[in-house]
């Protein structure tokens, strides 16, 4: 009576039946209706023995602990800062998570002002709407200058490549400073505007062609060509 109706890595849509029978268990992105497992999202299936999961292909960033994200300061209060990280809710950066020591009653805009772009790490998420972030840690700081482009959060792993291969290659060949947040925001800073623009084009290319095999090699060729012409 237990039957799997889909293959691994298959695109499914909301309402599509994934499996039949009580042997199978629903995980994130799915639900059970009587003896059937049904998809709740537009995504790709992932099987782990009898556990079925749907990894969403679209949608807003869903925060996970230990993710490095790029955010923008939108509000300053007594408690600290409120930061837009592209998820459904703003994240909170509290005073004690911001930097070493801040005196009571000090002007918080000295550290992070409205509109500042910061790289931060998610330290806590509740089941619902509260997200806590920190800027204590290596590489976590205010990002000065450069530009930000947005990509779909589900494509971030491709952007980074295996063990960061893609990103370090772009960094090395272009000489630009690059930071990819798990929330799909990419910060680019180079010495010349032309180089920044070139990296922007490359990033957009990766987003468009993220499914192609051997993408790293293709991008490598493109980078070398462009470098020659610059």
């Amino acid at each position, binding site marked *: 009576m237990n039957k799997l109706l889909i293959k691994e*890595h*298959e*695109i499914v*849509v*909301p*309402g*599509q*039946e994934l499996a039949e029978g009580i042997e199978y268990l629903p995980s994130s*992105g799915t*639900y059970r209706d009587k003896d059937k497992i*049904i998809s*709740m*999202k*537009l995504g*790709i299936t992932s099987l782990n023995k009898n556990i079925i999961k749907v990894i*969403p*292909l*679209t*949608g*807003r960033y869903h925060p996970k602990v230990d993710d490095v994200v790029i955010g923008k300061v939108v509000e300053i209060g007594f408690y600290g800062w409120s930061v837009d990280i592209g998820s*459904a*809710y*703003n994240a909170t950066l509290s005073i004690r998570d911001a930097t070493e020591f801040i005196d009571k009653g000090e002007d918080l805009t000295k550290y992070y002002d409205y509109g500042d772009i910061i790289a931060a790490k998610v330290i806590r998420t509740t089941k*619902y*709407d509260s997200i806590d972030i920190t800027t204590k840690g290596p590489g976590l700081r205010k990002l000065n200058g450069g530009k930000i482009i947005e990509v779909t959060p589900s494509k971030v792993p491709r952007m980074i490549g295996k063990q960061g291969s893609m990103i370090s290659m772009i960094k090395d060949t272009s000489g630009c400073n690059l930071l990819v947040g798990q929330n799909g925001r990419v910060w680019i800073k180079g010495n010349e505007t032309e180089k920044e623009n070139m990296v922007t084009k490359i990033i957009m290319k990766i987003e468009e062609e*993220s*499914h192609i095999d051997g993408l790293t090699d293709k991008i490598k060729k493109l980078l070398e060509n462009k470098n020659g012409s610059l």
Partner: protein
Amino acid sequence: MAAYDKRVSGRKFDEMREIEAKVGIIKRADGSALFRMGETIAIAAVYGPRELHPKFMQNPETGILRCNYDMTSFSVPERKKPGPSRRSVEISLVTEKALLPVLDLKQFPNAVIDVFIEIIQANAGTRCAGISAAALALAHAGIPMRELVSAVSVGKAGGKVLIDLDKNEEDVEDATDIPVAVTGRTKQITLLQLDGNVTKKDLIEAIKLAKEGCDKINMIQQKALKDAYKSEEE
């Protein structure tokens, strides 16, 4: 009145107009879709989940859905005065109620999901095209949905039960228009309105016809969503 055996458009009585569905047409939206039935074209954009303002509308138990239906001034032969009207407020409300049963907004407390439906060309059946487009856009925005929703109008004109009436048929004297929305998997009716008179027998027949039509629309919707991401499959 003489019973006709042919429709003005040459369609069969249970034949819908040509349908086209596409997702991802608006870059800056979280989810978007276009849905076309013959000359009726609806586009839908979804923004959110995001923080809800004004604050007093926030619900700490669940997220809320906010639909906005509007017709562009150039969508009809006689210029339509832009902005909300009695009619568009009603359609916004019924659209919201047609979509809400399939959504799972419990995981977004205090948040809102905004759906904007714009009719860019109208030839009857706009609320149905709007609902079908909105369902696609919501799925494309990654909102948790138990199933899709499809909608089609059925009705009676010239003594015959028809599916997907166009403007000519809707304007016939004593014509009846019944917009119906049906969920994709469990076949539940989430919208049922009626404009005109109808007998019980005809209504049952019309709803049966609508369910068959919605089945076909559901297939087209599923295909549109899958096609947009086909290249991702490994």
